[in-house]
């Protein structure tokens, strides 16, 4: 399908968002870059002068370990979220219209409450005198409260819970626009339900999966709230380190250098990823 507008006119549409991006994304990024090569002043501010010392400091094994742990956590979170989200999205996409609407509403419902509040509420669920422990104790299944909070497990619970909608929705969108006659055609050609899933449904939904992975992996990598609230002393990820540099340690240049490395790393990742997996679904959209 061709857009009746000429390309030149289409470019005009880009102007307001471009301005917005330059003002609130490009400019701050430049400032961060500038900070990251500046000297640190004794009170935590920026002093004049150029240095690469902050970047050198990142190479310290301490930070590399944290960076690696962050990547692993984000990846594991993404995988668990995907495994939970796919069946949900699948069920939603093929449910009758009414059920579909209700489920969609339920998936979006958590957004009505502040993220922080929802994370704090996990304390009352996972805590030593929280809902789960109280229940298990009452039932006599355990004799001492399980330690469900302030550890890596709780961080994963928080991450997966918080990210589920971002994974469910793009996969659902991809599956929902799939014409059921594709499934019928596959069965007609001799493939049973399982082979039809692997050969038709899954490949068809891959753009949705790819988008979901981006939506989950990247915010998780930079998240500092969940480890702060639900994690233990060791559950420090790169987001926490950056957060601390800006607030507790008041070392803005080092925090900026860490941010810059993270942002550019992600940019490289995304540009390679988009080219490879087409998460915007260009090909698919053209085919519909």
């Amino acid at each position, binding site marked *: 399908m061709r857009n009746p507008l000429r390309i030149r006119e289409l470019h005009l549409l880009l102007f307001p968002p471009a301005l917005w991006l330059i003002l609130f994304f490009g400019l701050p990024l430049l400032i961060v870059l500038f900070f990251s090569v500046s000297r640190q002043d004794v009170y935590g501010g920026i002093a004049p002068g150029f240095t690469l010392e902050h970047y050198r400091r990142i190479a310290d094994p301490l930070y590399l370990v944290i960076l690696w742990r962050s990547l692993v956590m984000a990846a594991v979170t993404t995988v668990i979220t995907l495994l939970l989200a796919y069946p949900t999205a699948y069920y939603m996409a093929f449910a009758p219209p009414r059920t579909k609407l209700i489920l969609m509403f339920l998936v979006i419902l958590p957004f009505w409450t502040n993220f922080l509040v929802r994370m704090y509420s996990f304390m009352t669920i996972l805590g030593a005198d929280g809902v789960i422990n109280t229940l298990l104790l009452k039932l006599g299944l355990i004799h001492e409260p399980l330690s469900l909070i302030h550890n890596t497990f709780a961080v994963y619970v928080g991450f997966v819970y918080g990210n589920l909608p971002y994974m469910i929705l793009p996969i659902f969108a991809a599956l929902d626009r799939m*014409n059921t006659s594709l499934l*019928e055609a596959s*069965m*007609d*050609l001799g493939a049973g339900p399982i082979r039809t899933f692997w050969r*038709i449904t899954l490949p*068809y939904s*891959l753009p949705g999966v790819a988008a979901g992975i981006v939506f989950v992996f990247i915010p998780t990598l930079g998240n500092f709230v969940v480890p702060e609230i639900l994690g233990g002393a060791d559950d420090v990820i790169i987001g926490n380190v950056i957060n601390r540099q800006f607030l507790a340690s008041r070392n803005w240049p080092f925090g900026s250098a860490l941010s810059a490395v993270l942002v550019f790393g992600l940019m490289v990742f995304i540009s390679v990823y988009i080219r490879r997996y087409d998460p915007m679904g260009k090909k698919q959209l053209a*085919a519909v």
Partner: protein
Amino acid sequence: MLELINVTRKYGDVVAVNDVSLTVAKGEFFCLLGSSGCGKTTILRMVAGFEKRTSGQIILNGRDMGDDPPYCRDVNTVFQNYALFPHMTVFENVAYGLRIRKCNTAEIGTRVMEALGQVRLSGFEERRPDQLSGGQQQRVALARALVNRPSILLLDEPLSALDKKIAEQTRLELTELQRRVGITFIYVTHNQTEALALADRVAVMHNGVIEQCGPPGEIYEHPKTRFVADFIGSMNFLDGQVTTATDRGCRLRLAERWDVEIDKASPVAPGNRVLYCLRPEQLRLSLLPARDFENSVPGVLRRKVFEGDATLYLLELANGQMVTVSQNNYIARLARDFYELNQEYLLLWSRTSGEIIRA
């Protein structure tokens, strides 16, 4: 080879297919023809296995297919929207059924190429479906089904999404292809021209029931019900009553005033009401009686509709009924026939023309 015995399909209170029985022979090009919502697709989907029947039997090659799932049936479908797999190339689309059947790579290669050759798409293997025109997509869908060499190929309005010219061309290719591969085709359409042109046999459906089933010529020349007579081509209906009847012919009294003799056996006993059906091309307009047209009724010419090769004349009979007459313009010009509006003419036809149907 394929036999449907008293097949019924209900959706709640809606009876989509009502007690349908039919037999399709091996190698036959069979057409299901009917207007929208008459149950054609439902029959096709029951044969393919996408839809369960409420009652009845569907027998393929002597075996009741029962509730076999679609992937266990030796039947393939060409879908109305083609349903090509968007993430696969043309080659992979066509190879799909063979890969599922675990054919070896060499065989897949030759058979896919052969099938693409048959639908004149050699050289398109590496394209994706969205890089093809509608007609080309339709042919990929055809190749994807044919390559499996099914007992029966089911086609649900495969030409309806194509523009008229391409549809006509594809129609011709389709008959040739069917002759060549010798696979039984069951073809669903609401387009009577398509059905008459393509099919060895046509089943005309209405409200979930098969009204009449036979070769296109028979359906056109000898409709058995009012619906079929009305649905296929255009038709004039005259009310009549049988006055006398023999096994060679009968006398009818039309519109309570004109007596005519017809060389057709009456389907009912004398005294009963019938519909006498005449096609516009069986009728003649004339000022004088003519020898080969034994029956005549007077009327006044009210309208002329020029249609290029022919002209339609709308004649008002004395009882107020309008009758359509179609005359070839070329022949009329040769005979220097010219008809004036609001002039009285005789409506003539031969006693061998027309069909008598129960009222």
